[in-house]
């Protein structure tokens, strides 16, 4: 015990004797460890935010997108390429098929960004043309008024349902229902306002900031297109999704006269796959950031090694003396390892603290900005950080320590 306590005490005094130098060495480790903690925490929280938003829409959704996907890669439409192979009749064929009882509802969508005005207020907003079944498929709720019905969907009615925040932007405190707005200079009557939902999830424009009009109205009067952007299907049992996907695929192949699976001009994705893909993407990002954080740890470690090599030169006589009074090589190695591990551990502890505080501040800021951001610090990241900082002390301390142990007592006692 005495053999360990004394070196710890002495290394503490040595650290305090050159405060600035010790501080700078420790800061190197603090930055690295804090970076690792922050990347773990903020990365995990961001991942949770995204996944929660998708799952908020419903985990039992299947999306049909035009264009073929390369293996597990994203379909071309996500990259912003417009593909016109998906149509309203495809949606009808799927919905009306008697072979898929698991499909509870299906909605078709077209998206665009348009200029909207109400009296003096002019703004650009995202517009979604959709079917009357939207509310059912998306689990959406109304704040006031009503959503458009099938008749309005078919009759090119100029009715609009507003997302929560855009309703406030356009009408401020007035009741929007019954009010008139202009979309691309055409008059529309507001018939409803949706309840607030922070995000529509991946692949859907932010619901609060969008306006919703009947699908055909959007296609013919606003966007001038015939095709669908995508279809979303709500199924009764998410465990059946693979079967449903297969059925939907066979219907679409029939509709599009496709004989060979390789020629599919559509992509079907279920929510679970989307969540998994997103998790993979965010994981890759996190590991990349972690690699960047590790580089700063590496630099911190090199800093320790550098300082220890200088320290050994400065303490040549001390090393010689210790050997002269009976220290073995291993005693000298332990002595210097204790010193480097002390430095790296202090850096580790301060780094963990800094990382936790910064992650907490990030969660506060994100919360203030309206995100449902959870403050997640995993015990795993703390344990990893502790182990890493001790390991850095050992790894970067071992070379200087061995060098010190190899010094001949005679030469070091002569050293001036």
């Amino acid at each position, binding site marked *: 015990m005495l053999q360990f306590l004394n070196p710890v005490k002495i290394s503490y005094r040595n650290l305090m004797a050159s405060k600035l130098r010790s501080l700078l060495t420790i800061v190197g480790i603090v930055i690295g460890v804090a970076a690792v903690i922050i990347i773990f925490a903020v990365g995990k929280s961001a991942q949770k935010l995204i996944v929660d938003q998708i799952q908020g829409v419903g985990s039992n959704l299947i999306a049909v997108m035009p264009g073929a996907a390369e293996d597990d890669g994203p379909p071309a439409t996500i990259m912003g390429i417009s593909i016109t192979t998906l149509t309203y009749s495809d949606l009808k064929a799927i919905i009306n098929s008697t072979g898929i009882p698991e499909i509870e509802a299906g909605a078709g969508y077209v998206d665009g960004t348009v200029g909207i005005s109400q009296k003096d207020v002019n703004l650009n907003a995202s517009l979604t043309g959709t079917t009357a079944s939207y509310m059912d498929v998306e689990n959406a709720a109304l704040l006031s008024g009503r959503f458009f019905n099938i008749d309005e969907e078919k009759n090119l009615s100029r009715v609009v349902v507003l997302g929560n925040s855009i309703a406030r932007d356009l009408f401020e405190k007035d009741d929007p229902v019954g009010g008139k707005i202009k979309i691309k200079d055409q008059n529309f009557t507001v018939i409803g306002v949706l309840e607030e939902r922070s995000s529509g999830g991946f692949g859907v424009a932010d619901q609060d900031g969008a306006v919703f009009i009947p699908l055909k109205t959007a296609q013919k009067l606003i966007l001038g297109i015939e095709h669908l952007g995508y279809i979303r299907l709500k199924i009764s049992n998410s465990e059946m999704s693979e079967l449903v996907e297969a059925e939907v695929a066979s219907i679409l192949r029939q509709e599009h006269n496709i004989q060979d699976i390789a020629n599919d001009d559509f992509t079907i994705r279920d929510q679970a796959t989307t969540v998994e893909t997103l998790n993979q993407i965010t994981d890759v990002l996190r590991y990349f950031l972690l690699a960047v954080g590790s580089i700063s740890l590496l630099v911190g470690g090199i800093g320790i090694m550098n300082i220890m090599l200088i320290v050994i030169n400065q303490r040549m006589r001390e090393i010689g003396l210790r050997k*002269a*009074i009976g220290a073995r090589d291993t005693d000298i190695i332990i002595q210097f390892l204790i010193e480097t591990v002390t430095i790296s551990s202090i850096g580790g502890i301060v780094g963990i603290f800094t990382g936790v505080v910064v992650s907490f501040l990030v969660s506060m800021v994100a919360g203030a900005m309206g995100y449902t951001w959870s403050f997640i610090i995993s015990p795993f990241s703390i344990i990893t950080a502790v182990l890493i900082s001790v390991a850095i002390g050992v790894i970067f301390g071992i070379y200087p320590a061995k060098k010190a142990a190899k010094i001949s007592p005679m030469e070091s006692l002569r050293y001036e």
Partner: protein
Amino acid sequence: MASFLIKAENIDKIYSNESVETRAVQGVSFNLTEGEFVAIMGPSGSGKSTLMQILGFLDYPTEGRYLFRGKDTKNFSADELAKIRNEEVGFVFQTFNLLPRATVLENVELPLLYDTRKSNKEENTQKIKKALEEVGMVHRINHFSNQLSGGERQRVAIARALVNSPAVVFADEPTGNLDSKSGIQVMKILQDLNNEGKTIILVTHEGYTAQHAKRILQMVDGQIIKDESIAERRMADGEKELK
């Protein structure tokens, strides 16, 4: 045959680098029994410090045999040498070599930290106090070594050399960095220790300092040219005066 503590037989020490070979010690032989007070004396470069380092297990001889308590030290491993340095040898250096940021207690404690023999904290504290009493420094036990005067530092260094009750104390120019008063004090301590039975090997270039020993090995150019006891010398000096 008397059992010698130290027996040196034809010891050579050669330092060589690429171009130059330096014979620091050449064919040195002598014996030393327990309780002696020997001064190795000579001008700088005479090889006296090198000889002390070999005798103190800090260095190996290039040639010759060095027997300690009758055992040839040639085949001792580095760890065995460290153990001997810890248990059998105490060093006092010209420059004291105290740890500056450690207290007197911690400095004297240092050899005990490397002692592989079992001892408890209380025994260690007793040893430290006893060693400090020998040099009259108990009252400074909690002072930091950089708060002490040169003479006091050297006394602490002697206490550190004594704490593990070694068989031999090596003192390498122990008065070299001290004023004359402190120097006298330090030599007095060494003499007292010798009177109590401790073996002391003193390395010095000063004739005056060497006079405190009972036997002087005179070295020149790596060789012992004279080995005489102080009593013999005094007798010879007396004879000279009579003539």
